[in-house]
């Protein structure tokens, strides 16, 4: 069983409306030094390699097809044993 951690972020070119609200909230708490907040998603997958092809190909396929929308998001992942 492999554990995979996927981190999804909004493309830098896109305004992150949620991030901006959180940034404003931090400012009102007195953290004036916060220059930017971007909010993303974190997913943990537990899976057994399917045997066909390698695990990386399979994870990338899952990310491209469903877990992320390549039009608006970027992702990175890490495979933990």
């Amino acid at each position: 069983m492999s554990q995979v951690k996927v981190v999804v972020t909004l493309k830098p070119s896109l305004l992150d409306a949620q991030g901006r609200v959180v940034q404003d909230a931090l400012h009102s708490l007195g953290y004036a030094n916060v220059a930017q907040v971007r909010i993303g998603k974190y997913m943990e997958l537990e899976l057994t390699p399917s045997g066909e092809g390698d695990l990386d190909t399979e994870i990338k396929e899952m990310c491209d097809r469903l877990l992320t929308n390549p039009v608006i998001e970027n992702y990175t992942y890490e495979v933990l044993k």
Partner: protein
Amino acid sequence: MSATTLSRETGRSAGGGAKPKFAVIRFPGSNCDQDAYFMVRDVLECPVEYVWHQETSLQGFDVVILPGGFSYGDYLRTGAVARFAPIMEAVYAHAERGGYVVGICNGFQILCEAHLLPGALVRNEECRFICKHVNLRVENAETPFTRNYRQGQTLRIPIAHGEGRYVCDDATLQELEQNERVLFRYVNAEGEADATGNPNGSLANIAGIANAKFNVMGMMPHPERAAEKILGSADGRALFESLLLALK
């Protein structure tokens, strides 16, 4: 039914004069399905059926409506899971053979996730869910979805969404603009597409677009909720009447 033949083009019953048949797709979490159904049955007076997301055929339908709502709870991203529902294969096939597809609100989000339309809908600029009537300008009145409008006509149609900010890359925007695929833009009371008329921060004030073949369209505003004067506006009705004209 032995004499009934189906056109290869649309799967529509041949014989002429028959009213076009509408499908309203129901996903778990759809909540504007009844509005769309009522509008087709009682306002347009055309045959209409609900089609459950687990179905796999759209044979015999001329127009497929993907209604508003929160399909699959908007989990992951709006429309991301609905896009893989069994019925979507039939929606692809319907679009491929030239059948009309109308995506309203969540339906628009699903069509973008399904790559039947370019771009994506993300969280509104101000983060709030917005539910109000807005002004739209008809940007291209020569499409099967808009031919009953006048070019540049201003419409009052309600929006109800939290994630309706249209975004796409520069190349896509250029392609949309050059080929007049932007059907509706948000405008202010003076009919200008500026920031004051833009409720959600959509790129270039885009409220609705079509695919390259002009048989698939998506829009965030709800024309089906503005099909009768008693509801405050009947400006949405001409969109569906345009389709009736196109299917004559």
